[in-house]
Structures are given as structure tokens and as C-alpha cells.
């Protein structure tokens, strides 16, 4: 054999190595990084007031009930919760006599479409679901939020201080959800919960297969759904590998070419990196368990199951796998996957150790009374052998919801150091006659039932006769 070609090829190889493999001594281009927060929050707390609530029935959200208790909020944070607190060393403290009233953490809804499916329900504002492809991980619900939706005000009057706005459920991957503080603002960014992780909406079952099956495209079956999820995660895994390699090579002093940006895969990669939390519309027991396995296959956390009508059938598995489940107390029958409702669903899920049961609304109407939605579960379960208390039920709409959204270090409970997001109720919040009297976000009063000054009005409703 002639040796020359070998030599030549070696030279070629050496040259190409110098061109593409980024020798350590080569000058590096500016590092390409993906901005994780291109639409940063501009939220600022409304005027805060140091406040001492005295003599209330306090549900802490951490499982405790304190009677005749006081709560002190200072500089927008919960300072103390206890009996006979004094605030003499705190400047400018307002005292609110909460005798006969109840105090709870601000209510958190993990599943809302306020702003993206607003009132009035007009085509021009129907921006909740990009139903043009089974995978629209590239869309972000926050870009559809109309902050003038009057539903935000009604929800606030019901004690809702934090809510996740999700895209709809027509797609396997519906896009990113955003967590908002329920304060009036004329921009989405003005409501955005600082440092709350993004959510990724996924959907199981009937909706994706119906919407795309009608168009004679994948998915038209549940197995088509699963093929769609897996194909996307496989692609995302490669995307992540490409970025990891780029980062590694760059760190090694090489000058690699950055992978081509893909907005859809950015979101999926965020999940694989543990930065974006899954919020999966999934009703049925067998489908939730399949979703858990897909997450294990691709090494991410399967997150929170929403609308888990059949969660009671797999309560143990859900807790073992570390899933939160967000449920209605009693909606049912609107489709096959909602046929097996039981009124004790939330209670059965909740009864397992390490569980994370949540009551959600998915409704501009019931978001106004999540306390009563939780109350219905409490009482129906107790009618049938459970021994639940108010201090248990409050967790389903506060701390567990905060956990699902990845913000339980900031809100969802009345514990020292947490954001002073709280609701003063006219009595037991689990009564049909319960009404939020005052609502606070970060220690600022955002709603007062008896003072119009604290009753915000949407631009849309202004001047209407």
C-alpha cells in the first residue's frame, strides 16, 4: 500500500482538528447563553403596613390551628404567630381586632386561565391555547395574559393572592405557565411572582387525541399521545446534550459552535434541568402512572397532576413518586375521563404519608371560593369516615399549592419569614357563608370588603353603565 495518502489524510485531519475542535489556545467567541428570564418581573408590593392581628382563629397552613392567636406582619413578612403578641418595639403598627374572625395564608390556585380566557369571553381575547400543533412548548401563557380581566378582582375578593396561569389542554405540550401575584397591574410583568419557577403544561387523554385526531394527525389515540411525549423528550435530551457539550467545551477553553436555538426545546430542556416544573392535565389513574414512567425514562420529575379525577385509585403510588395532585372537589361527567369522580378524592390522596393534595379551580367562578371547594371535600370525607379538620383542609389551597408551584419557601403558610400573604375571613372559611374581609399580599392590603378604596376595578369595567 502506498503510504502517502495516509500521511496526507493525517495532515488533513490535523488541519480540520485545528479548525473545528477549538484548540485551547484559540481565541473564544463570546459565550452563548440562553436568557432564562427575558420577561422579568417588575412587581412591587403595594404600600405595606406593619400590622398586628389579634385574637383570631389562625390556620397556619402548616397543619396547625391556633385559637385566640395573634399574627404580626412587619415589612411585608410574617414576623410572629402566637398568643398575646406585643408589637411595642415595632414602628407604625396597625392593630386589627380579629375577634371572631379567622386568619389563613393567602389562597393559591395552581390552575387558572384568568387573563388568557378572560371575561368578557370574546374571540379577540381568547388566547389560552395555541391549538396549531400537538407540541407548542415554545409558547408562554404570560404572553397572552390580559391583566384587565375583571376575574382577577373577583378572585382577589375570594382571598386568592397567588395563581398559576396555564395554557389550555388541547396539546400534548401546551406551553409554559406563569405564576402571578394577584395584584392589579396594567402589565403582566407587574404581577409576575419573582423567582417562581416556570411551569410546563402537558395534557393526557381525551383532549389532544380529539383535537388532532379530527385533523387526521398524530395523536388520535392515547398511544399516539405517549409516542408524542416520548419523541419530544428524546429530542429534548439530544438538545440538552448538545448544549451541555457546548458548555463543557467552552469551559475547557475551546471555541465551540453553539447549538441552534429552539424555543420549543428550550422549555423541555428546562424541565430536564429541573428548572421548569411539569403541570400535567391528567384525569385517569392508568395514564398518570404511564406519565410517571415516561418521566423516569427521560429523567425528569413528573410534577403535579391536574384534574386527577382518578387519583384516589393510585394514592399510594402518587405519594411514593412525589407527585402533587390538583383536584376539583366534585366536578364530573363532562367527559369519559371525568366519569369516575368520588367526592372524597382529595381526602383519599391526602391520607397517604408524604402526599401533596391540592384543590384547584380551573374556573373563573370557583376560584372565587376555593375555601368552599376545599370545605366540600372536608365535610363529605368526614361524612364517610375521615376525621379531617379545618387545619388539614387549608393546606389543600395554600401550602400544598405553593409546593406544587415551587414557591413554598416564600408563601403558602403563616410562618415567620414567609411573605405576608394572608386573608382575614368573617368566620370559618369552610362555611358557605364565609367571605374574605381583607386580603394582604406582601403585607400590603389589596382588598377590603368594607372599604371601596381597596376594591380595584378593571379598565374594562370602568365607565360601563
Amino acid at each position, binding site marked *: 500500500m502506498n503510504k502517502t495518502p495516509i500521511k496526507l489524510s493525517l495532515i488533513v485531519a490535523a488541519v480540520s482538528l485545528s479548525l473545528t475542535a477549538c484548540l485551547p489556545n484559540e481565541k473564544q467567541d463570546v459565550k452563548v447563553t440562553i436568557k432564562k428570564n427575558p420577561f422579568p418581573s417588575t412587581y412591587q408590593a403595594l404600600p405595606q403596613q406593619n400590622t398586628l392581628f389579634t385574637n383570631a382563629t389562625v390556620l397556619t397552613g402548616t397543619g396547625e390551628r391556633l385559637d385566640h392567636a395573634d399574627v404580626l406582619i412587619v415589612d411585608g413578612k410574617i414576623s410572629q404567630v402566637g398568643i398575646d403578641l406585643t408589637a411595642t418595639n415595632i414602628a407604625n403598627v396597625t392593630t386589627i381586632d380579629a375577634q371572631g374572625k379567622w386568619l389563613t395564608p393567602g389562597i393559591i390556585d395552581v390552575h387558572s386561565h384568568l387573563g388568557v380566557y378572560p*371575561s368578557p369571553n370574546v374571540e379577540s381575547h381568547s388566547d389560552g391555547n395555541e391549538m396549531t400543533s400537538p407540541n407548542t412548548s415554545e409558547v408562554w401563557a404570560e404572553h397572552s395574559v390580559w391583566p384587565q380581566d*375583571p376575574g382577577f378582582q373577583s378572585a382577589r375578593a375570594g382571598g386568592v393572592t397567588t395563581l398559576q396561569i396555564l395554557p389550555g389542554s388541547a396539546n400534548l405540550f401546551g406551553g409554559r405557565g406563569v405564576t402571578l401575584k394577584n395584584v392589579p397591574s396594567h402589565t403582566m410583568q407587574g404581577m409576575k411572582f419573582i423567582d417562581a419557577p416556570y411551569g410546563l403544561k402537558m395534557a393526557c387523554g381525551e383532549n389532544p387525541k380529539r383535537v388532532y385526531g379530527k385533523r387526521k394527525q398524530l395523536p388520535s389515540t392515547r398511544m399516539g399521545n405517549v409516542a408524542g411525549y416520548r419523541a419530544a423528550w428524546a429530542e429534548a435530551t439530544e438538545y440538552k446534550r448538545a448544549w451541555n457539550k457546548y458548555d463543557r467545551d467552552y469551559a475547557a477553553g475551546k471555541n465551540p459552535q453553539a447549538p441552534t436555538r429552539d424555543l420549543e426545546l428550550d422549555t423541555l430542556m428546562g424541565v430536564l434541568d429541573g428548572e421548569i416544573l411539569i403541570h400535567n392535565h391528567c384525569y385517569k389513574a392508568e395514564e398518570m402512572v404511564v406519565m410517571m414512567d415516561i418521566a423516569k425514562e427521560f429523567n425528569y420529575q413528573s410534577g403535579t397532576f391536574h384534574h386527577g379525577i382518578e387519583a384516589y385509585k393510585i394514592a399510594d403510588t402518587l405519594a411514593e413518586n412525589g407527585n402533587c395532585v390538583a383536584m376539583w372537589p366534585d366536578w364530573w361527567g363532562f367527559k*369519559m375521563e371525568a366519569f369516575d369522580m368520588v367526592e372524597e378524592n382529595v381526602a383519599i390522596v391526602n391520607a397517604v404519608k408524604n402526599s401533596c393534595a391540592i384543590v384547584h379551580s380551573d374556573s373563573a367562578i370557583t376560584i372565587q371560593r376555593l375555601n368552599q371547594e376545599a370545605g366540600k371535600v372536608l*365535610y363529605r370525607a368526614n361524612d364517610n369516615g375521615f376525621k379531617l379538620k379545618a387545619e388539614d383542609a387549608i393546606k389543600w389551597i395554600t401550602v400544598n399549592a405553593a409546593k406544587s408551584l415551587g414557591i413554598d419557601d416564600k408563601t403558602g403558610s403563616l410562618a415567620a419569614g414567609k411573605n405576608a400573604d394572608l386573608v382575614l375571613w368573617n368566620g370559618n372559611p369552610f362555611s*358557605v357563608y364565609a367571605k374574605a374581609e381583607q386580603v394582604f399580599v406582601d403585607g400590603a392590603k389589596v382588598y377590603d370588603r368594607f372599604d371601596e378604596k381597596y376594591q380595584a376595578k378593571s379598565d374594562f369595567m370602568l365607565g360601563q353603565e
Partner: protein
Amino acid sequence: MKQMQLNDQLDDQLGKRHITLSALVKVSAVALFLVTGAVQAKSTAITNATVYTVASMGVLEQATVIIEQGKIIEVYSKQNTPQDIKVDEIIDAKGRILTPGFIGSMNTLGLVEVSAVAKTRDGGDKKAKITFDASLAFNPKSTLIAYNRKGGITSNIVAPHGGEDLFAGQTFAVDLSGEFTSIIEKQNAVLVHLGAENKGSRARNLQALDHKFADAKKALAKKKSKQEAKNKDKKDKDKKDNEVKEPKRDEQVINALLAGEKPLLAYADRASDLLALLALKKKYGIDLVLVGASDAVLIANEIADAKVPVILSSIANLPTSFDSLHASLTNMATLAKAGVKVILAPKGGSHNLNQLRFDAGIAVANGLPRADAFSALTANVADVFKLNSGRIAVGKNADLVLWSADPFELSTKVDLMWINGKAVSTRSRQDALRDRYTQKSNMPRAYSK
């Protein structure tokens, strides 16, 4: 049912004297039934109850209600309760609240099992017209019925969706016994949808409705004059001109509306539409009922003056359209205060009709007097749809609910209930599923039945 205790001293009590005259008459009647043989219906006395009569007697403490053969045969206040009551069964209510069974309305109970499953839907039809009688499709074995009994609902006005026609068909009344005899009355009101349109103008439907009545009225007048001519001139009996034709089926329904024989239930929200309907009532004398009516509060006095009842949800408080900018949690209270007869209807479909009692509680929390809230679920519905229920009074159907506490409160449940005097259960498929998944077994759940 531990609250029930059979009166085993029944025979001993026969023939005993009683303190009041009316009691004497009634109890003698009961005794008569008892001795006439074994086939007669069981009589039941519910004693020591807090009775919300929703009738002239108001709320009675420690009262007694006697039911027999499907009817309420006696209502005794505490003072008038005889010492001995001759009945087959006595139930000590122990002070708990007894109300008339609640009456749902404006939903598709028994016509839809699973909303998204086409073959379980019978609430509408493209070709449905004013004559559409959906009662033929009613399924008393629907799983929704037992579930909705949990809300103390004993009867319901079922309203189909209709189709492309101006009229959505007619309502029918059912009880929630789950029996094949559930239908109380067919075709008892006519449905029309007005207001905002996706295509075209709302004016056309209002105009079409006006023309329907105008034309029918004209035809009736013509028919009348022909009839008179015919009667006058008996010789011309066979003359073709004077032949009085039988009106068509749809014309008969319009005629029934003009005669006030059945109500027209008009869905509309914007105040201008509601006023147009009030004008039609005035013009043609129809028995008008408004449904939805989000902005009715703007013209509450006009509605009250026209004596038009309003069927609405207490929780539909969002401005979901430009027709509903005045939707509010306080609307029901505002209307009632103005003197409007209000009926509480569910906001959604029929699967969670049982929540009507909570909606009533929410209305009360937002200013509706409790008595009005009870009427809105009972007597007012009965009045509009001419049902022999909705009140606890002698002669009314024995549709009754004994509650563990305040019927509107979330923590309260139905302890006992009767439909047409027969005790009915609130156990549903949901309970069976719960029991299956909460009991311990080393076998697959499918073996737990």
C-alpha cells in the same frame, strides 16, 4: 336508618281521643285506612322537626308532618300536635330541619350522561322546534339522578337545548325517584333563546317572536269570526270558505302561549332585550319568565311591576359578555328586594345540580333573605311550573328532606328524604367507587363490589 323507629304500640293507640278537632278528623282518617286491609300505603309521621313550610305557616318548631299515600296529609305545629298519632311509622327528627324537596330547573338531567359522549346526549337536535318533546328521551336510571339526590333535589324542570330554530323546544318536569314513572308533566313551558348572536342581529329573533304572536293572534281572530259566521248561517255549513281548519302543531303551541296556558321561558341577559320581552308580555298577555337575566338588576322595578319571575344563577357574577356587564353575586338579593319572584337555577349543567343548596347559601351570604332563598328552590318553582310540590302543606306531594343541619351549609347533609312519600336513598355510583378504593383487600379492586 337509626332515626326511624316503628311505632309498635300502633294497635293500642287506635281509637284514642285527641285534643283538637282537626286532629281528630285526620287521625280517624288514618285509622280508617289502617283497618281497611294490608294493601294501603304506609303512613309516616315526622315528629319534633323544625319545619320550613315555605307556606303560610312559616317556620314551625317541634312540628309534626304526616305523610300518606304520597301526600302530606297533616302539618301540626307544636301546640296543635295531638298526643297520640296513629301512623305506621314515626320518625323523630330531634329538632332537625325538614324542608320541601328542592326543585332544580333549566338543565338537562336525564338527557345527558356524559357531556362529551354524543351517544349519551339527547338534549338537543338540529331540527328541534317549538314542539320538541325531549321527555321521550328521559332516562330515570341515569347515574346523575341518585348523585343529585345528595343535594336534597326531589324534582327538576328539564330544559332541552333545541337546535337551529328560534324555539329550543319545551321543558318537562320530573321527580328524582329514579323510577320509570318519574315524569310529572310533559311540555310544560316553551323555551326561546334571545340576545347576542354570533352571526346576524339580535333584532331578528325579537322581531320573529313578535310576528309569531301577531300572526297567531290574527289567525285566531279569523278563526273566531269564521266560527261565528258558521254558527250564524247554518245553511252555509258546508261552504268551503267557512271551514275551520285545525291549527298545525307548532301553531297550537303558540296559541297555548297566547292563552297563558304555559309559560314562555326566555333566555336573555341584556336589559334592552329583557325590556323588549316585557313589552311582548304586555302586548300579547303571555306568561313570561326570564332566564339568565344578568342585567335584570337595571330594570328590577319594571320586572317586578310586570310580575315576571326570573330564573337565574346566584354565582354567575362575571361580565362574560357585553350583555352581562352587571352580573353580580348580589343580583338575586337586589331582584328579590324589588319584589321579583326569583328562582335559583344551576350555573352549569346537570351533573352537579346537587350544589344548588350551596348556591342558595352564597345568595344568602350576599344579601338574599333566607326565606326568599328557600322559596327560590321550592315554592317559586312550583308556582311557575304548576307543580303540586315545593311547600309543606296539606295535600302537597310528600317530597321532603330531613337535613342534618342548615340545608345551605357545606357541612350539612341529607339525613332522610322522601319523593312522593317514599323514602329514597342518596347512595350513588360515587359511593360505590369510594368504598371499593378505601377498603382493604388482598385481591384486585375489581373483586370488591
